[in-house]
């Protein structure tokens, strides 16, 4: 058995012989759920803001004739409108979802459909209000999580891969792809792919998201011009912000799927009450 402090976390056995351990401290549980709600509001209000000018560019300014990505509607040769996504020189028909979608039974020309935006109607002003208020919640919640994580040692214990995990990286990938999840004592720690994914999210994607958002602000650009420069200009920062949002959404989808297939009830109980079952295995039967 590898020497990992996580594996030596205290556990209790209930009357039925089931092993339990306290997986998530309160601060992390709260931070997790606040983050989930805040990210949902930020995503949907972000799509509302995007809809006001549904095109992305690289560099400092907008090259209106030549966007890197655009979600628009075009008039077909038959006179009917179609929703299209244009990426470089490629065009994709996305009628019904992107560019042209139904709102209350009526076809409307909007990049993201009303069910995906906050507010549902086209309302940039209110979308911005939601976005900037909840951006503060994201930052404050993230700061609490990171400070707690660093000073309690939880971040290191939970998210830095142990030596044996790095050595068996290939094996871990194989197990993961086969949807075989660790049981018993090994389930006390995240597997190496999980650890790296969470690290990329909390130290990479989410901070990049906040910084790219700030880089779009003309006030921040005056105060900290290096920040906008870091992203290669305001329009680049806007594109990075959009792509990072897509990656976070991808993470959430995969995360939720894995939570479901790796034991929905146990995982949810863990993130709500803190207690996670390691099962009734041979070790306890002995």
């Amino acid at each position: 058995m590898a020497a990992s402090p996580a594996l030596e976390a205290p556990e209790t056995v209930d009357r039925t012989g089931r092993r339990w351990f306290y997986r998530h401290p309160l601060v992390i549980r709260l931070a997790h759920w606040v983050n989930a709600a805040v990210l949902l509001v930020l995503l949907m209000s972000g799509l509302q803001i995007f809809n006001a000018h549904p095109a992305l560019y690289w560099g400092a300014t907008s090259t209106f004739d030549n966007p890197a990505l655009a979600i628009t509607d075009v008039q077909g040769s038959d006179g009917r409108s179609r929703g299209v996504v244009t990426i470089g020189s490629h065009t994709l028909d996305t009628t019904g979802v992107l560019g042209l979608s139904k709102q209350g039974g009526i076809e409307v020309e909007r990049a993201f459909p009303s069910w995906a935006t906050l507010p549902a109607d086209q309302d940039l002003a209110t979308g911005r209000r939601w976005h900037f208020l909840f951006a503060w919640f994201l930052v404050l919640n993230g700061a609490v999580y990171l400070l707690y994580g660093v000073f309690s040692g939880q971040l290191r214990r939970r998210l830095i891969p142990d030596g044996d995990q790095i050595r068996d990286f290939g094996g871990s990938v194989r197990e993961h792809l086969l949807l075989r999840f660790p049981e018993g004592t090994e389930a006390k720690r995240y597997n190496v792919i999980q650890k790296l994914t969470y690290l990329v999210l909390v130290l990479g994607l989410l901070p990049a998201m906040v910084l790219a958002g700030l880089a779009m602000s003309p006030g921040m650009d005056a105060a900290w011009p290096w920040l906008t420069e870091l992203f290669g200009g305001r329009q680049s920062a806007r594109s990075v912000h959009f792509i990072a949002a897509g990656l976070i959404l991808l993470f959430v989808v995969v995360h939720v799927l894995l939570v479901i297939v790796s034991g929905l009830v146990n995982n949810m109980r863990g993130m709500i009450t803190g207690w996670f079952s390691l099962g009734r295995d041979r070790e306890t039967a002995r």
Partner: protein
Amino acid sequence: MILHRRKILTAGAGLMGTALLGGCDRFAGTEAGQRTLRVGEDANEYVQRLLMSPTTLAREFPASMISPWFKPNGSIDPPDRGYRALAAQNFSDFKLAVDGLVQTPLALSLADLRALPARTQITRHDCVEGWSCIGQWAGVPLGEVLKKAGLKPQARYAVFHCADTLEYEAGPKGGGKGRAQGASLWRPTHPGAVREAYLQLAAADDWGGPATATDAPKDDWGQGSPAPEPEETRTPIRYYESIDLYDAFNPQTILAYDLNGKPLPVSNGAPLRLRVERQLGYKQAKYVMRVEMVESLAGIGQGGGGYWEDRGYEWYAGI
């Protein structure tokens, strides 16, 4: 079994999401909700102003980065008669009024303004909608004009009254300053939509602009309409904006008369537009006719400090 449970959970999550977000829209519609959502704006203004000083400049760019086309947005061709008459004379009769809480009210022609110290700057214009253009602006620093007029000690905000009508108040002229609720007007929801409003209203002959219109709105910047005035039944809402002294005396805050080395085109705000480079595009009032110094924004429009501010946008547009 598991599949079944999963289905229930998925449906449950979907329902919860719908309820949550429907609730969000309802919340945003209430006064308490509106107030809550505004907290973010105060926080942004507070923190951004901690990070800069009154004289911090927005970034300036090399001439090679000037955008080939500077996208005009919002009003692009004011239909107002008074404005059209000025434009027809190439703004030779134009006089910028500077009044309110000043020692000496001024009326400055373009020649007067060009005779004052000038500043030229190549800056990036960031629209609230998300796009950006770089342009070279030349104009007189607002601080120079305000120094010439001399501020009274109570003066806290500079309000910019513009020539372009965006909509009409509901009801008969002078009939209250409330929101134009129930008006049959097409109301723009963001700057880019103003053009559509112009087209629709011009087509509907419901606009003050066309020469055939029977109504000639009286200019509220004191430059009477050239035509004899038939009875006006509606009160035009023209563009207005405001900044505080923190921004008013920033060296880059100028009343610009040139864009890219040429006199400002009508579509970009001729003859004079404001540049407040540390904020978004809607603060950069076009067609500025009058600068009024005030102590409070309460009496301006609906009290938000600007046309878009009174329609939900932030007064502090640094983000």
